[in-house]
């Protein structure tokens, strides 16, 4: 079934392929994502591993068209497990600076707000619509 997942998420010079991170096993073992994965697999031709790459794309496209909710669930599962894989997170950190660790507890530096940036809008006249009752409060 790696052929299916590698068709969806192939590798390139930096990112590993789906099979390269063991996505099949991760999907199969996930309590929420295993079912849609199995359901999509059941829709594929039995000889999916033997057909050409172009035919694999065609087969997946047909499932995406005919069973959009099911294919959506698989895609969410596949992308979720792929992009939280440590190998993939390490690639993203190297390329972008987005750290491979969880957002907490460290977070990111919080700069100080510069009040000078509002100089232009602060100089504008009030532009909310007055009502009879409103005073400055």
């Amino acid at each position: 079934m790696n052929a299916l997942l590698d068709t969806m998420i192939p590798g390139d010079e930096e990112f590993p392929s789906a099979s390269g991170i063991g996505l099949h096993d991760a999907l199969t073992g996930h309590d929420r994502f295993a079912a849609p994965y199995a359901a999509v697999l059941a829709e594929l031709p039995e000889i999916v591993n033997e057909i050409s790459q172009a035919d694999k794309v065609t087969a997946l496209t047909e499932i995406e068209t005919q069973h959009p909710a099911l294919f959506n669930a698989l895609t969410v599962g596949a992308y979720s497990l792929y992009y939280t894989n440590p190998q993939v997170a390490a690639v993203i950190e190297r390329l972008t600076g987005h750290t491979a660790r969880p957002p907490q507890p460290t977070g990111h530096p919080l700069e100080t707000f510069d009040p000078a940036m509002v100089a232009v809008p602060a100089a504008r006249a009030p532009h909310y619509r007055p009502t009879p009752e409103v005073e400055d409060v």
Partner: protein
Amino acid sequence: MTDIVIVGAGASGGAAAWRLARAGFKVTCLEQGGWVAPDATPSLHPEWEIARQTTHHPNPNVRAAPQDYPVDDSEAAIKPFLYNAVGGSTILWGAHFPRFRPSDFRTKTLDGVGDDWPICYEDLAPYYAENDRMMGVSGLSGDPGNPHREARQMPPVPPGKAGVRMAQAFDRLGWHWWPADVAINTMPYGEGRGACNNCGPCDLGCPHGARSATDVSYWPQAIAAGVNLITGARVFEIETDAQGRATGVAWYDRNGVVQRTRAPVVALASNGLGTARLMLLSTSKRFPNGLANDTDLVGRRLMHHPTGMVTGRFTEAMDGWAGPFAVSILSQQFYETNPSHDFVRGYQMQLIRSDGPVGTAVGGYLPRVPWGEGHHARFREVFGHTASLTVTTEDLPRLENRVTLSDHLTDSDDIPAPKITYSLDENTKRMIAHGIDSATHAFTEAGAADITAQSLVADAGFHLLGTACMGSDPDASVTDANSRAHAVPNLLILDGAVFTTAAALNPTSTIQALALRAADALVRDRAEMQVAS
């Protein structure tokens, strides 16, 4: 016996419980969810983004947690977005905290649409201020788009690279913009609450308590003041006497055993969906169509904030995965009615930062990164390189947009689920189209490399308003100006259900200000209130 039972421990329930307990009331609050431990936030774990797609998904139908009830949204253009816990939906909110503008209370008088509220901005102003102090607000005085008011508790959240870029674009266009008011600490504030560390996914919880939610703001003080908060309590009926006065509530405990809490005053604080559901469930000889529903308005006039979304991609990295995801700067340039527009009322544009790797790939602000050969190339193009402007529109009340009871869905206690029937009208569609043009213009001015628009964000049913509306006329509204049901003198409705109109901005500060005001009115009027004998 308790003096008042409040159903729901979210934004409004927490505020009212605190206020009433401090005034000497014996308060019992029933909440179907539980406490969410600060250190239980998924953002402490490597799989944090999977939680957003599963266990912490904002749609209860996807999340399907034990404390959730399903929602029949088969006829709803906008899907529900809520949470059931102590803190309610503030558990997963972005903490955007604007106030209504004065004109928002006078849409009928000013523009001939909707209805005027029975109160005005000035009536709520002191409660907005009190609520700001309790929740803790970061922001900046001097916004020409709103009446002058007191200084916020803390300076604004820095806008981030994209925020600076868009602010400069707004300045060149001569458009209004201002740093967003947010209930996020930019320095330590409140009991044991630290400062924001710019992590990004506020919606998954904040282990430092920097992002305010009522479980860390109001509730510790409410409990210290004596409120009896019972969790795992799923209310299914408001009980009444022969005259239709509320006598208390019936609820299931965690073991599915029916319990009853009697009280001379009942208050509903379960959001515009849950409160309408509960009122429709509470039928009696006096109220065969649901509690306080003589006018057939309970559940009707459901308002959201229909949201369009425009996303600009920049060639330079914007690092939008850092910083509170929902808050940076906003523009109210097109907020008020303008005769040159082909719609009445208006909208706000709010800058949103970008997403983590999973959110980017799965899509939301932008369409999903396509699977297949070009997948990684597209991911590289967009990840960390985007910012989005939401087009948050004013949704005018219409009777056909409503909450009813589902004829086939029930929760785990076999209580009928709510059903949402909701569509957009032409005024809203035209408003969104105008907003998309405006946001596209702003991104073009800012130098975005390409721009993508969504005409409606379906997963944006986070503001559930209007289903038990406030008004002066008992024949045309459900509650009076003090949030008391016209037809049931000892029933208060504290959440967004009472909104007469919706404005075009996030409602939580207004919901809480109304709840505080209703609590003060109850303290003042309790001795004269008709209650069950």
